[in-house]
């Protein structure tokens, strides 16, 4: 099975000998041949050489011809601002500058950068017949946003007919562009519509489903397969996307891969993604890239999955990271090594909580989003708030709002996974469930009993007699000695007559008696600072 067959089989959920790998090389191709993004995305030779270089270095199973979502917008009158290391950005929106939908036209094959893409696709097709070629078209909603600006969001409510009309136009643009790319030799048409992540499922079904549902059959009728790309937090729309019946859905790291896997399995379509673009591929090293790829492969399973970055690869992605992914994908042994390699990634500063809760008080930690803005969190905090006064000074409660870094570290340290959660002395006790009054009291009482037992076990103390001279000491000493005797207690008695030492107890008038108890907080190891802080808080 060659690379192209591998991709096409995975797209159709057919059995494959290994997971196919499709690095989305866009302007990154420019970096590979040392030209900037402008020179890369506008020049035929550069585009061609960049793709050739990427194929040579990454040995991919599939590759896009051009990854630039501004091609259609540019032709339709959006002004572009170019930068050296990124695809261009749209800076003006013709529909807000006096133009109407009627003034727009379906781009002809001769317009803008389409000829450049067509020619490149044809050449690459001829040179690399065994690799799957992706043609990328701007999805209808993203193109509509380019044309109409952010007002489009509000127009969805205020002028639904207008928005529908605009999306129908954008749908026709996508269909035309798809046809150009398929004729030039592309095997797969990816409809890339990242901005749909910003709307609800209801609006998706109201506005996006109809146009997209017409694009996919048009592509299939011309013999190509379809992929629906989204990026950003679009988890709520995955099912609606699947219902548009593409062959494949491709997502980025914002959406859990297992979630998409399960939906795609139900809908009998394939899926792809979702390697981390920034932290791993751009800023990480080869091991990071391999581990991330392995995680994706393990989560996704072997059926209907295409390994790919979440989106367009950053210009400066170190090629070594991508080469490392290629080695992993093609070498089962490498996969085994990575699977067993302990994760060496630096974890955030997680305090050691093994000693948490070794204080006199019972500490109740409530991990919340924020009780002021999350109703379940609010009820949970209130349930504790109501009970706490019954235990007077024994119970102390705290809310940890996970919008703060420290709270996230705390949450991680206590291994709390759900919000809201109640922990009693560091032990997860109520998860996403507001406990009843009696239930909460019982839980606290249980913990108090445990502690009492522990306390009796570890108690150790001293009694100090403070006097400025022997006379003063002797006034008190016989009394204390008698008391110890009568109790049969094993308590050392310490006499202190040094003036400075007496003052250090905060005592000015003598004779005086001070008792002290010692509690073993840790043995044979140094405790962590956060844990020690908890102990010190008890002393204040």
């Amino acid at each position, binding site marked *: 099975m060659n690379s192209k067959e591998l991709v096409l089989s995975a797209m159709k959920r057919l059995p494959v000998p290994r997971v196919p790998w499709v690095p989305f090389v866009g302007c990154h191709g420019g970096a590979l041949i040392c030209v900037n993004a402008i020179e890369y995305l506008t020049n035929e030779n550069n585009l061609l050489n960049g793709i050739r270089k990427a194929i040579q270095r990454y040995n991919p199973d599939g590759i896009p011809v051009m990854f630039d979502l501004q091609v259609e917008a540019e032709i339709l009158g959006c002004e572009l*601002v170019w930068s050296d290391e990124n695809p261009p950005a749209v800076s003006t929106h013709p529909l807000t500058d006096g133009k109407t939908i009627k003034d727009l036209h379906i781009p002809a094959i001769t317009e803008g950068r389409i000829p450049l893409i067509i020619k490149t696709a044809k050449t690459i097709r001829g040179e690399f017949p065994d690799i799957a070629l992706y043609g990328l078209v701007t999805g209808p909603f993203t193109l509509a946003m380019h044309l109409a600006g952010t007002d489009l969001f*509000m127009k969805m409510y205020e002028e639904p007919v207008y928005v529908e009309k605009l999306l129908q136009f954008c749908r026709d643009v996508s269909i035309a562009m798809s046809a150009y790319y398929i004729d030039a030799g592309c095997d797969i048409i990816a409809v890339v519509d990242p901005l749909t992540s910003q709307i609800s499922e209801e609006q998706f079904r109201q506005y996006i489903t109809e146009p997209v549902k017409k694009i996919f059959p048009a592509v299939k009728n011309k013999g190509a397969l379809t992929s629906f790309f989204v*990026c950003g937090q679009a988890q709520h729309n995955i099912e609606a996307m699947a219902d548009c019946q593409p062959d494949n859905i491709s997502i980025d790291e914002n959406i859990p891969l297992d979630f998409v896997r399960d939906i795609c399995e139900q809908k009998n379509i394939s899926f792809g993604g979702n390697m981390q*673009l920034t*932290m791993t591929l*751009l800023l990480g090293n080869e091991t990071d890239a391999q581990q991330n790829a392995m995680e994706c492969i393990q989560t996704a399973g072997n059926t209907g999955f295409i390994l790919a970055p979440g989106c367009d690869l*950053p210009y400066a992605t170190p090629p070594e990271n991508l080469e490392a992914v290629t080695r992993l994908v093609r070498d089962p042994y490498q996969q085994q090594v990575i699977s067993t390699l302990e994760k060496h990634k630096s974890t955030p500063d997680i305090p050691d909580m093994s000693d948490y809760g070794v204080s006199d008080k019972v500490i109740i930690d409530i991990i919340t989003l924020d009780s002021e803005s999350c109703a379940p969190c609010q009820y949970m905090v209130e349930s504790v708030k109501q009970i706490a006064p019954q235990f007077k000074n024994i119970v102390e409660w705290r809310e940890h709002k996970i919008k703060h870094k420290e709270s996230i570290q705390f949450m991680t340290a206590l291994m709390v996974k759900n919000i809201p959660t109640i922990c009693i002395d560091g032990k997860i006790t109520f998860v996403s469930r507001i406990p009843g009054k009696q239930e909460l009291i019982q839980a606290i009482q249980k913990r108090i009993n445990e502690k009492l037992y522990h306390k009796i076990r570890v108690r150790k103390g001293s009694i100090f007699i403070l006097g400025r001279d022997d006379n003063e000491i002797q006034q008190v000493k016989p009394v204390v000695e008698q008391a110890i005797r009568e109790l049969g207690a094993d308590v050392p008695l310490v006499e202190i007559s040094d003036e400075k030492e007496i003052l250090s107890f905060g005592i000015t008038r003598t004779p005086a008696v001070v008792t002290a108890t010692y509690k073993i907080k840790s043995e044979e190891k140094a405790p962590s600072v956060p844990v020690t802080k908890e102990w010190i808080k008890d002393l204040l």
Partner: protein
Amino acid sequence: MNDLIGQISICIERGKVNKAAPYPPDMREQDGADELTKQAIDDGIDPNEILHGCMMGMQKIGEKFSRNEAFVPELLMSAKAMTAVMAHLKPFFQSGNVKRKGKFVIGTVAGDLHDIGKKLVAMVVEGNGWDVIDLGVDVSADKFIAAIDEHPGCIVGMSALLTTTMVNMEKSIQGIRAKHPGTKVIVGGAPLSTEYANKIHADGYAADPQGAVNLLNGF
């Protein structure tokens, strides 16, 4: 709560701008934030109370957003309803009778020309009671610093949509901290993460407009 204020709060939460507005469909032909605020002022209701009612409405839509029950279009409709209220309350701000939560200076960092995300954040933050100073796109560190000079005590928001420009955030934060060590800076944008925000010593990362509001209200 005064009934009128309660109604205004609902208009904000549901994004009902004025009587003529078709959205939301179940509130068609009803008075919106615009008419109700005017009436409240005419009735002599304290503008601070009106503002408080609005904030409750914004908070509710914010909660829905956080729970994935509302999305950007709904947030924007609420922000638009809020703008209608603000038009009536503006004279009271100027006279000093009503206080805003603070000043928020926002811009897309140097080299980055993406406007959409930053604009959405600006609109929603403004709707939540902050004075927003939008510096636009491709904002240099010097420009951020000049804005802080002009608006002491402000909180700065930086947006970057590109992996190449997000590195400029770090430089801008360093520049700001050198001149205004106490200034809080929050960051956002597609390629960012909490991990990255920590790395560049930002005071917070927000994944969406409501996240930015939560951060700001938390400071």
